[in-house]
């Protein structure tokens, strides 16, 4: 990937919008609330000091304009992490939004996101939140931080209750019905390394913050 393309990732309006989208509510204007920046790991204070969970080194970001909906990331993610092809537990979610975007079929679907609308895919990725809702909600403390700072599910501790799924604003963690254990993104990068159109990248937090600041966000 050329440097230009790398730089372009967060310059795109739609990518940013998707990335910042909170449960269907778009973020307008040029100012993002502190709590959202917190969620994304960007604060005015030194996050590493205050966060209960050490900050992840990077975050998986999708450039939706480049996503062609091939769904290879979903099989690659589950093959790499679970040894089986299972899009339902892929930590990146593309197929669930394939036809009608994140909001599902609406009367005006022909003009909304998705293959039956404006043709835009809506890949969803884990934000590796600074204060992860999933981890904070887990009743048995099964979500911890690994050596690269990703929030990961400790399979031995997980009881498969699905609290993390409900707690995540983007419904990202998924309990595998075949093992009754939760799954979530571990920042392994397999999906990004194999995306046929380079639509995915693990972006270091410093770059995210820099891009946000450049765009006028407080970060």
């Amino acid at each position, binding site marked *: 990937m050329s440097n230009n393309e790398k730089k372009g990732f967060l310059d795109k309006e739609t990518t940013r919008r998707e990335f910042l989208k909170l449960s269907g509510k778009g973020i307008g204007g040029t100012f993002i609330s502190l709590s959202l920046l917190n969620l994304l790991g960007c604060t005015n204070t030194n996050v590493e000091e205050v966060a209960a969970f050490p900050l992840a080194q990077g975050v998986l970001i999708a450039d939706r304009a480049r996503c062609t909906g091939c769904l*290879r990331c979903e099989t690659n993610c589950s093959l790499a992490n679970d040894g089986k092809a*299972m899009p339902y537990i892929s930590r990146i979610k593309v197929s669930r939004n394939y036809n009608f975007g994140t909001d599902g079929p609406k009367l005006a679907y022909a003009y909304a996101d998705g293959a039956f*609308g404006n043709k835009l895919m809506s890949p969803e990725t884990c934000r590796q939140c600074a204060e992860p809702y999933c981890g904070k909600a887990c009743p048995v403390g099964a979500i911890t931080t690994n050596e690269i700072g990703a929030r990961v599910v400790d399979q031995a501790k997980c009881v498969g209750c699905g609290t993390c799924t409900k707690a995540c604003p983007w419904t990202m963690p998924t309990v595998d019905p075949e093992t009754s254990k939760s799954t979530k993104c571990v920042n392994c990068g397999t999906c990004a390394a194999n995306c046929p159109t380079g639509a995915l990248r693990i972006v270091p937090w410093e770059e995210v913050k820099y891009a946000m600041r450049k765009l006028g966000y407080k970060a």
Partner: protein
Amino acid sequence: MSTGGWAGKIIRVNLTSGKISSEDTSKYQDFIGGMGIGYKVLFDEVPAGTKPYDEANKIVVGTGPLCGSGVPMSSRTNITSLYPGNDKNLVTDSHMGGNFAAFLKYAGWDAIIIEGASSKPVWLRIEDDKVTLEDASSLWGTGIYNTTAVIGSTMGKESCVAAIGQAGENLVNLAVIMNGSSHSAGGHGAVFGSKKLKAIGVKGTGSVKIGKDKKELMDLDAYVMKEIVGANNQHVVPSTPQPWSEFVYENSRWTAREGLTWGASEGNIDTGIAAPGDVNKVGYRTMKAIKDLGPVAAKYTVRMGGCQSCPIRCHAQMNIPQLEQYGVSPYAANTCMGWFSPAGVMFKGTKDQKEEGDGNMITRALGSQLADDYGVWCNYGSIGRDFQYAYESGILKNVLPEEEYNSIPWNLLEAGDPAFLKEFYRRVTFKEGEFSHLGDGTYHIAKRWNFGADYWDTKKYSMWSPLGFPKHHASDESYQVGAIINCMFNRDAQSHSHQNFISSGLPVDILKKIAEKLWGSADAIDPPANYTPMNQYKAKFAKYGVIRNCLHDSLTLCNWMWPLTASPLKEREYMGDTSLESKYFSVVTGIDTTEEELDLMGERVFTLHRALTVKEMGTTDMRGQHDLMVNWVFDIDPDKKPFTEGTIKMDRDDMQLALTMFYKEMGWDEKTGAPTRATLEKLNMKDVADELAKLGLLPA
């Protein structure tokens, strides 16, 4: 059964009784999946003489062991049933890509066998193990797009829906079953309609298991993505000079170059230099939009798209605001014939609106939306050619009642105004008047309207068989090889194995070297329009083409990409890897299988197709009654002789020899072309041989 690949179960749904049951896939393991299951069910369960719309006809919607496993280009649905497009009521397959096949696997099913007929409209709902029939009365009369949206809001946005439109409901012979916004299977839509089955919705939370270590599978993927896979149709040479390639081939679908962009994408994404080895660029190689819609289409391209698991992306996704003036969405997606057929209907040409070539693009995009939503099929482009012949020969004026003839806005057709397409597809879909018989299919319409010999015998109309199907990469491109393959099926041949290799873009001397390694001699292929008499290497090449095609539709893999016979890499001397299907099969299913063993399974599937055709036609005389070609094949270029430079003209005796040599390769009776008992038994199909013997249909 194996540890990986297959889901292990098949849904059987009887629409007459409403009974839904689960069957074990292992019963069909010898036939792999998809197409193989379809043929076996039809051979065993549908009596000869059954007609496509009879309650006794069955339709099998199938996937195979590789589908859903993540193997590149593996989300193909194979649909098998009797075909209504001619009066022989023979088995055909229709195929669709998209997400449906993979999703069916994730729901835990390898195939769906549909039998009987419902008395009221229904749709089949599949959510993992929960399979139910739902009332479709409110959906009956609805187009495919809205049907998908309604079922999507009932089942959840993550579902995938395969549906018929009004054409299928109204028993238009040329009707499709479609999933996603552009993936349609042609010829069986009205079989669904005759059973009052509107749609199948599927979502699944399960997995496809991998028989061996996941690493082996991921390593194979990496190898394919880095060294073997090309652009669409496995073209391995770029269409413009590129720093990484020593060759250029103008017609190649490897279009990526600096400055060619997805012009309607945010940021105007450049397809750029997508060199072999760069796995994150594979999806930019093929900008099919400009191939199918012309150069003007680049700036209207949102992105490329395609099927689950496929890195190639051959379906163009467009944003063409001019479409709104016709009352349709500006967003359109399709590939190949989906775009081409409407242009064939507008045979008088199209008028540009604002810029050069936009009339053609708008025509194709409007027509593709109309045909897809109504669910009209084109018989591989024949619907437009049939229309053209009937119009230009004056037949249409004679056969249509005067009032009806005068109600058709011919001025729009003459003026190249795409609005004509709205009239055309509506009349066909809703069976309005005599005109709508264009939707019956070539065979029926030619009989009904008494088409002259010039229709069949002029290459312009592209007919291949007196059974009413057109050529599809036939003798005009690969001589005896294409001709044999085009004679084998009961609709236009869906085989691209041979075509993709010869049109890969490599110079003929390199192709010949590869041919020598694979089929024993460089003489297996010919340079363009300079071909030689039949030889046994061509017979071997033809056999490779057909049996790989059958393998792919059983595994299920996309035969528009597979087999990967050539590679884009010079250091490999451009050799692809023909062992890949067997390697993937071994890793995914966990059953060690060699290339030869898997090819033998393909041979079994194809021989079963032949046995089924013999049974349905009630004769062993395949040579005399089935493997037929129309006259232009032999009579084109009257002042030229076959086997001379500059002609595609075939020789009648040589073609009969070609069939004989092919029958021999297949182990079929050399006189009739019917499968022998010895061959059927060698392929583990003693039961098929016994049944044919009972019917007196084994060659002497």
